[in-house]
């Protein structure tokens, strides 16, 4: 076996002509129409005990955009993400994804439809290798059906090979190729964050919910993750909803920003518009109580 590692530790991106190796694997459905609404949250309500964590939150997310979700601590951002991704059910209200009412769907059903989320802290599959983390991520794998495993292995051999080639390319893109056979649990904090994104690329999501992707990583890596997110939107047509506290990052990458306070939508617009919005500024200073 020739060592394919050589010189890959610090990937040099210099070859020229496009064979669209990455683009080829992108499924046709990732963005047939670059406009229109992909996700609509309609007056979502969720109480925890007596506290209304989310109280009448409504917004829309357009296809092929990066939408930021900001607001002071306790505004209900994470709960909103949990409601949309099916981790918890709303008390009332609706979630419309890609034209279908998906309110209260279990996470795996939403994921099958193309709605993938990440978590606030990195949650890689620790005792699986980096490559395996990616291989486990494509949705609806034929090889995950028991019958195929034992009676129709031909049904997934080609697919498996395709996923493997794509995984290696994606790892290369994210600068993790040299780490492919390491246990994911042994990566550094920053590498784990990149792995989360790489894994999400493998799932070919229509909508990717990122819960505080920049939390606890250094400024250089913040830039890198930001660029990856923008590249995923531009080349793969992924739509993003990003919960983020770092407003500079939000300003840099988000096409559209939703500001929440006290469980409901306070204002929407570009970051520049929101900075000029007195209600938003007050909410940030006071937590929204004023």
């Amino acid at each position, binding site marked *: 076996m020739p060592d394919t590692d050589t010189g890959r530790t610090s990937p040099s991106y210099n070859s020229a002509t496009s064979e669209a190796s990455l683009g080829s694997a992108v499924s046709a459905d990732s963005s047939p129409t670059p406009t229109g609404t992909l996700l609509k949250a309609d007056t979502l309500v969720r109480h925890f005990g007596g506290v209304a964590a989310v109280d009448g939150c409504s917004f829309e997310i357009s296809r092929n955009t990066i939408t930021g979700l900001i607001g002071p601590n306790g505004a209900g951002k994470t709960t909103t993400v949990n409601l949309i991704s099916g981790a918890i059910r709303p008390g009332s209200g609706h979630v419309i994804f890609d034209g279908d009412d998906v309110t209260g769907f279990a996470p795996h059903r939403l994921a099958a439809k193309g709605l993938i989320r990440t978590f606030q802290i990195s949650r890689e599959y620790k005792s699986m290798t980096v490559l395996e983390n990616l291989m486990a991520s494509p949705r609806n794998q034929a090889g995950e059906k028991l019958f195929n495993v034992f009676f129709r292995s031909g049904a997934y051999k080609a697919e498996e090979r395709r996923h493997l080639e794509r995984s290696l390319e994606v790892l290369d893109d994210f600068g993790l190729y040299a780490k492919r*056979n390491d246990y994911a649990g042994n990566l550094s904090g920053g590498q784990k964050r990149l792995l989360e994104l790489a894994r999400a690329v493998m799932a070919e999501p229509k909508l990717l919910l990122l819960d505080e992707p920049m939390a606890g990583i250094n400024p250089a890596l913040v830039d890198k993750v930001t660029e990856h997110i923008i590249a995923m939107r531009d080349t793969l047509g992924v739509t993003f909803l990003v919960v983020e506290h770092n407003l500079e990052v939000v300003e840099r990458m988000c096409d559209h920003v939703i500001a929440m306070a006290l469980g409901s939508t306070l204002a929407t617009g570009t970051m520049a518009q929101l900075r000029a919005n007195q209600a938003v500024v007050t909410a940030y200073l006071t937590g929204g109580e004023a």
Partner: protein
Amino acid sequence: MGVFWGYVATLAVYFCIYNIFAFGLNIQFGYAGILDFTVITFMAIGGYFAGVAVLGPAQRGTEIYYIFGWSLPWPVALVIGAVAAGLLGFVIGLIALRRLRSDYLAIVTLASGSIVYGIINNDNKIFDGGAGLVGVSQPFGSHISTNPNTYSEFFLIICFVLMVGCWLFANRLYSSPLGRAMRAIREDVDVAEAYGKNSFKIRMTAMVIGCMMVGIGGALTIAYVTALSPAGWTTGETFVIWAALIVGGRGNNWGAVVGSFLVAVLFNEATRFLPNIPGHPNMISDIRNMAIGGLVILTLWFREQGVIPERKAKFMEIPLRATRAKPGLLAVSASGSDNA
């Protein structure tokens, strides 16, 4: 020669059967992370159902009662035993796998096992209660030989073939995308769900397959011993199988084999042949349990992953296409490392 080789064959039979138990538990715990604390119940169900399928109808007036009594040929009985164990696994899975995780799931399996034990032990109409089934004829016994030593050697062949079958099945499952999804669920069920894995369905698959394998082991046990009673499958027996898997190495079927040899054969079965110490009839079995417990503690202390730990998944080495276009549309920065 006969006696010695018969003894070796007996140990080898137990070794094969424990391997099958350990493979079954490995699929449940090592692959899918299901804490099945009632493995031995599925062995018993497999054994009982295979037993009543082989036995003739219960005779009136003998005070021995059991259900079925179909006088079926042994291979059919084996299938019935495996299916019965799988069905019980499915029912317990319905309760345990839908909402519960780790420790709560373990409690439910333990409780379910106790309920099954209580019912079978107390209701003498199902499998003759505490007395258990006796006189189950050995497979092909009438055709082989009445000499127990020769028979052990013959039975060993059956066990070995079935064990190899289970081994191939378990390894194929492990290296398949389904096995990978099981491990992903074991690692983090929320993330696996967020990536579209139906964790209930996949864990149920692992549960039922594991139970069926353990059921096959149970059917082999009753066929070899010709009897099975509740005293033979107390909760303690579950932990012998667990000890085998933990000492050997969970997630690795070679680990299951090594663990079965160390725990089930060397520590458990071989010591049964030691002479009893006069005046202390339970001494040997107590020492045995202490030794197994000590072995588990030593393993967890010094070699947490077991003697043969789970191996890294190997993939075909495909060179990144030399002509690889733009280093990737997603490539952003030339610095591959970060110092976070």
